[in-house]
């Protein structure tokens, strides 16, 4: 077990522990903060597995933008008052059984695959190489994703508009 392997197992424990804590919290803000910790762990795993640019992007986009958006919405809607009071067994048990079955199947699949024992040799991709590869081979996908983000922007604006004053489909509702 090399030093890098130890780091990986430690990070895996952090990720899984933080995600487990996030999934089982009743308070939404606590869940989001635990998930931020989990995403920091994932960013470190990306750095370890040779993708430093992706690690930084994970911190900036996932932990820094998406989770902060969640926090904005949670605090704006004042949802904490609506925290679930009791996790009934009928709510948890089927999902837990499904998750466990899935996990067992994944473990079986991975352990019986001859290619899964291959060791990962350490390598790193510099952002320059990553960017060049992205824009030489996947330019069209970048353009399509940028158009998608424009459409989602328009959609979020239209959907998030405050309701019009007059209930009969008013014309002068202010955003």
């Amino acid at each position, binding site marked *: 077990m090399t030093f890098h392997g130890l780091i990986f197992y430690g990070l895996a424990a952090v990720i899984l522990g933080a995600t487990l804590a996030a999934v089982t919290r009743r308070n939404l803000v606590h869940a989001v903060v635990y998930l931020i910790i989990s995403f920091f762990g994932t960013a470190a795993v990306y750095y370890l597995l040779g993708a430093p640019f992706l690690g930084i992007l994970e911190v900036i986009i996932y932990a820094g933008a998406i989770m902060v958006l969640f926090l904005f919405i949670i605090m704006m809607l004042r949802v904490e008052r609506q925290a679930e009071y009791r996790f009934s067994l009928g709510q948890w048990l089927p999902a837990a059984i499904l998750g466990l079955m899935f996990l067992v199947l994944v473990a079986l699949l991975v352990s019986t695959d001859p290619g899964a024992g291959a060791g990962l040799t350490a390598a790193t991709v510099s952002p320059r190489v990553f960017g060049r590869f992205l824009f030489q081979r996947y330019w069209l996908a970048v353009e399509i994703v940028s158009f998608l983000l424009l459409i*989602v922007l328009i959609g979020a604006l239209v959907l998030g508009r405050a309701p019009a004053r007059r209930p009969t489909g008013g014309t002068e509702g202010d955003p």
Partner: protein
Amino acid sequence: MNWGLIIPELYYLAVCGLLLVLSMVVKPNPRRDLVAVVYLAALGVVVCLASVRMEGTLFAAAYRVDLFSQVFKVLLAVGFLLVLSLCTELNGIDDRLRLEFYLLLTTCTVAMMLLVSSAELLTIYVALELSSYSLYLLVPLRRGHDVAVEAGIKYLLSLRCGPYD
């Protein structure tokens, strides 16, 4: 790069851009808007029919134009025209939102045309997502009906947890 190969998509992208600008600038007038968009869609069908015989690859072999893809683009253009001609009476959608409605339909058409021609897994995935998102946004546009918002949430969440995750 031979830009003539992607004239159908460029035309519909231009229609998207036009609808985007018009939806912000113009006073809504349902009858005039519908007539204009139906004419644009009919012109789009003509453009697609004119480019049926084109062949080639673009974008470092990520995009392939051949008879198969061009025939499907014609079918998509005709479908778009037919759907638009059904939209004479849109209940529950604000007059202000009509142009966004047409914009989202046009975006879905563009995305499906890109999907039909793409030859790389990532481009296929991204084009599929674009067409799906424009429809996720279309469902809750109707105001005044709670069912629309609830349907939108259920559509988004169940189709996210389904095929893609």
